[in-house]
């Protein structure tokens, strides 16, 4: 040990003269709030990593604005040690994060460093794989249409707004309405969905309270979901450059798994805060403000991020990266700048409505305003059969319910439709942290849309539904549930078996 240190030192000292070289440097003109203005650095490239020399070691940054004779940079770390006149070097590298299997189950910051107090992520002798934080999205040639479902375990979503692997589905709604819950339920359900390989889930917390992140990690751990989840956290206390970087580095981690031919799911919670961070940086760097004081390239900020979600074709490994961005609206205003941008970028949105939430419809998904542009291509055959009618019936119910408020006497058909609508609305309610396997969802929806629950008072629908699933689990696991699960289809025989099973169940009640 001693010998190796001495030979190492000797080599270093002997090589002293040879390794000295001239380099272009810059000087810090101003510094503050996570940004710095630098004079010099004539050869620096845009987005290049910089190193600020400080008394307590080097602090890294990224060149952002290249001006005539100054450079605007964002600082990734503690900017309080950087002084005016300090020396800045450029590195010739772009920002990248080390990625690998070892990250699963860990909480990291946007630079890929551990945040969970469990020591280094990578073993010192392991192979080092670095992925650039910014990367061009896969081209059209490398892609394939989305066709494999990613079951969220939430009835409303899997039934009416299906999400496929490689899709980008926006979750949008006001504060405190259950956006994060949908995301967490989806992560938990991935471990239980045995029909498809479990995707690696990456949860990105942007500007959230550390207590909330800790709570989410604890919930995921409790449900065994941390075995396939990575949490990237840029907490509220971190400077805005890290908020800005977090989704990009999380996507880089996801891309690593996608390139391995596996599925990955990235949840960006939330992109409104990400846009704020970018606005802050842009304004500090004196880029011209546009609408709502966001800079001109705010659309590109999100489009280049979400374009990286993809389903690769067989020649490229067949992996996928699914993106579930979250946007927080102010007082339900979906026509604000950032919400409209992200709605237009994604392949559909899940719109959560406060009114429904307060009526007790939880998850408060507005089935009328929510869409999935991938549609039923991302549904199993069984789900397609039962859910096709669901969407239609609920749409008719909404129309009639508004109309029926004024009419006191309704004809038989209308009354029945409204009754059915009420039953279905009740049936779609679902508590938090209780994702349902898709075969059970199929049974419930079949019972609901088939009219088997029409005679049940709405208040009892939820209990009857639970009892039905319990009955099916105990009496018909083999001939119905397992068949739907393994084949993904609701064949004629299975349908008959299901129908008789529901009949038997109703007789018992």
């Amino acid at each position, binding site marked *: 040990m001693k010998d190796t240190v001495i030979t190492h*030192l000797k080599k270093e000292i002997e090589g002293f003269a040879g390794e*000295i070289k*001239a*380099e*272009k440097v810059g000087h810090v003109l101003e510094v503050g709030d996570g940004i710095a203005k630098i004079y010099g*650095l004539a050869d620096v490239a845009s987005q290049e990593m910089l190193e600020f020399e400080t008394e307590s*070691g080097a602090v890294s940054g990224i060149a952002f604005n290249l001006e*005539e004779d100054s450079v605007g940079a964002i600082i990734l770390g503690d900017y309080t040690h950087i002084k005016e006149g300090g*020396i800045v*070097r450029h590195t010739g590298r772009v920002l990248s994060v080390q990625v690998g299997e070892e990250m699963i189950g860990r909480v990291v910051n946007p630079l890929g460093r551990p945040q969970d107090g469990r020591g280094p992520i990578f073993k010192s002798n392991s192979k080092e794989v670095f992925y650039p934080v910014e990367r061009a999205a896969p081209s059209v040639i490398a892609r394939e249409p989305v066709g494999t479902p990613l079951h969220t375990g939430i009835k409303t979503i899997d039934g009416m707004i299906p999400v496929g692997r490689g899709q980008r589905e926006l979750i949008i709604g006001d504060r405190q309405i259950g956006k994060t819950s949908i995301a967490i339920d989806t992560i938990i359900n991935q471990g239980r969905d045995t029909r498809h390989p479990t995707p690696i889930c990456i949860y990105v917390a942007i500007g959230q309270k550390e207590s909330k992140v800790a709570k989410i990690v604890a919930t995921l751990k409790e449900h065994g979901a941390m075995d396939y989840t990575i949490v990237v956290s840029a907490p509220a206390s971190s400077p805005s450059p890290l908020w800005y970087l977090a989704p990009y580095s999380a996507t880089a981690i996801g891309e690593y798994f996608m390139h391995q031919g596996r599925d990955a799911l990235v949840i960006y919670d939330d992109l409104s805060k990400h846009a704020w961070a970018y606005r802050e940086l842009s304004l500090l760097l004196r880029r011209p403000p546009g609408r709502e004081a966001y800079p001109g390239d705010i659309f590109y900020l999100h489009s280049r991020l979400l374009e990286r979600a993809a389903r690769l074709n067989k020649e490229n490994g067949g992996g996928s990266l699914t993106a579930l961005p979250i946007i927080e609206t102010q007082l339900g205003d979906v026509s604000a700048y950032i919400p409209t941008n992200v709605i237009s970028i994604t392949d559909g949105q899940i719109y959560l409505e406060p009114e429904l939430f307060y009526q007790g419809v939880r998850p408060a998904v507005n089935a009328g305003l929510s869409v999935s542009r991938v549609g039923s291509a991302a549904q199993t055959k069984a789900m397609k059969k039962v859910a096709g009618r669901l969407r239609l019936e609920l749409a008719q119910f909404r129309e009639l319910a508004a109309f029926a408020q004024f009419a006191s006497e309704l004809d038989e058909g209308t009354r029945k439709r409204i009754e059915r609508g009420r039953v279905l609305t009740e049936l779609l309610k679902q508590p938090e942290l209780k994702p349902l396997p898709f075969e059970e969802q199929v049974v419930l929806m079949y019972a609901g849309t088939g009219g088997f629950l029409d005679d049940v008072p709405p208040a009892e629908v939820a209990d009857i539904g639970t009892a039905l699933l319990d009955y099916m689990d105990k009496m018909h696991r083999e001939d119905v549930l397992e068949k739907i699960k393994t084949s993904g289809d609701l064949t004629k025989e299975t349908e008959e078996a299901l129908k008789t099973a529901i009949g038997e169940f109703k007789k018992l009640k």
Partner: protein
Amino acid sequence: MKYTVTQYAEALAEALAPAGAEKRPSMIRRFLGMLRKNKDSKLLAAIVRKTERRWLADQNLHKVAVTSASPLTAAVKKEIEAVLTRKPMWEEKIDPAILGGMRILVDDETMIDASARSRLDRMFSAR
């Protein structure tokens, strides 16, 4: 009309060049007055940097700032001078904290760091 930093710097350098040493302070005072009148005082730092760069080029000089642990010997200076394409304008600083060797900064942008301190730092920060 708004002037750019480059325009100010060029005008200042051209005006100062032929003027004698006794005239310069009053010219600079007038220049500062003009900046204030044009509400461009915040550009001053940038103008000074640009003017300095231009002046150095005009005079065929290099600004050579050397930080060393002990005073430079004439032989070392001569060695440095031999590498440069223009004549040096020395700016010397003694800083025992760099331990040994020297740090040379040419024209505020090219750095040759041959100090023992940075060597040691690099040795111990390497993974």
